[in-house]
C-alpha cells in the first residue's frame, strides 16, 4: 500500500511560502518590532526568524544563517527529509513512532533553549 508523503508535501508548501515571502523583503521595514524585546531588552526565541525567512526567500543563505541559524540549517536539511519521506511513502512504510528516549527528549528541550540563548547572546 502506497502512503501519502505528508512531510514532503508540507516541506514543499513551506518552501513555496518562504520563496513568496522573499518578495516581501522591500516592505520588511513596515513590520512591527519584537514586543518581547521592546519590553525586556532581550531577544525572544524568534527574533531574527522573520529576517532569516525573508533572506532565505531571496536565496541569501549567508544572511539567513546570520539572522536565524536554526532556520538555515533546517532548510538545508529539508531535501534529506523530503527524500526520506518519499522513499518511506513509496515503500508503503508507516511513519515510525517518536523515540521513547529521555535523552532525546532532554536533548530536544536543550536544543530549543539553545536556539533562544544563541539569539539572545548575539543580540539579534
Amino acid at each position: 500500500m502506497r502512503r501519502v508523503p505528508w512531510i514532503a508535501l508540507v516541506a514543499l508548501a513551506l518552501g513555496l511560502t518562504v520563496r513568496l515571502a522573499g518578495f516581501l523583503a522591500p516592505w520588511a521595514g513596515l513590520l512591527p518590532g519584537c514586543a518581547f524585546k521592546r519590553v525586556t531588552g532581550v531577544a525572544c526565541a524568534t527574533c531574527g526568524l522573520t529576517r532569516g525567512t525573508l533572506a532565505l526567500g531571496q536565496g541569501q543563505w549567508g544572511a539567513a544563517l546570520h539572522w536565524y541559524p536554526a532556520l538555515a540549517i533546517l532548510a538545508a536539511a529539508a531535501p534529506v527529509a523530503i527524500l526520506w519521506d518519499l522513499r518511506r511513502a513509496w515503500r508503503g512504510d508507516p511513519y515510525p513512532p517518536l523515540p521513547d528516549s529521555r535523552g532525546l527528549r532532554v536533548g530536544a528541550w536543550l536544543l530549543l533553549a539553545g536556539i533562544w540563548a544563541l539569539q539572545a547572546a548575539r543580540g539579534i
Partner: protein
Amino acid sequence: MGVPFTEAIGGPFRTLFRALVRPSEAFTDPPPTLGRALARMLAVWVPLSLANTGLTVWRALESYDQLRRSAPPTWLEQALGADPDVLRELLRSLPPSPAFGHVWPWLLLVVPLGVLGTWIHDAVWDHAGLWLVGGLKAKRGFRATLVAEAEALRITALGTLIGLLGFLPVFGPLLFLPLLALDGYLWLFRGFALGARHGCGVWRGMAATVVHAALLGTCALGLAVVLLAMLRVGP
C-alpha cells in the same frame, strides 16, 4: 413520533456544554473511529465557524471601507509614524473592498479547509508537545492524537458559538477579556482528550498544549508575521 426540533438541536449542544464544564467525564467512553470522530467534529464546527468567519469578514470589509472614507485614527497615525496628510491621501487611493456577496461563496471553500487545517495543525504540534513531556509512553501513535483532537475540537467549537457574542454592539467589546479567558480554557481543554486517549494523565495532556503554545509562539510567529505583512501589503 419524531424528535422535537428544539430537542434535536438543543440536545447535542447540551451534551457538548456538559462536556465543557465537566471535562474529566468527557472522554471516559471508548474512543470512536477516526472517521467518525472527524465527521462529528466537522458537523459541529464547520457551521459555527462559517457563521463566525462570515461575521468577521463582513465587519472587516465595513471597517476597511470606513477607513478609506474617513481620516485614519490617531493611533494608526502614531503607529505608522507617517505624515497624516500623506497617510490620508494613501488611504483614499486604496481600491474599494469587494462586496460581501462576492466574498461569501469563497468562505464555503476556505472555512472547511481551515477547519481541517487547524485540526491537523493542532494534532501535529500537540503530538510533538506530548513527546516532549513524555506523554507517548503508551505508544498509541499519531492516530490516537488525531482522534483526541477531533473529539476535543468538536466540544471546543462551542466556544465559537459563544464567541459570536463578541460581535454584539456595545456589549461585545466589554466581553473581550472574558472571551480571551475562555479561549485560554478551550486551548487547555484539548489536554483532557489527549490525556485520556494516550493514557498519560491530564497534566501531561495539558502540558502538551502549553508546549504547543510556547513552540508556536517561538517557532512559527515569524512566519505568521510574514503572512500578516503579505495581508498588509497585498492588493
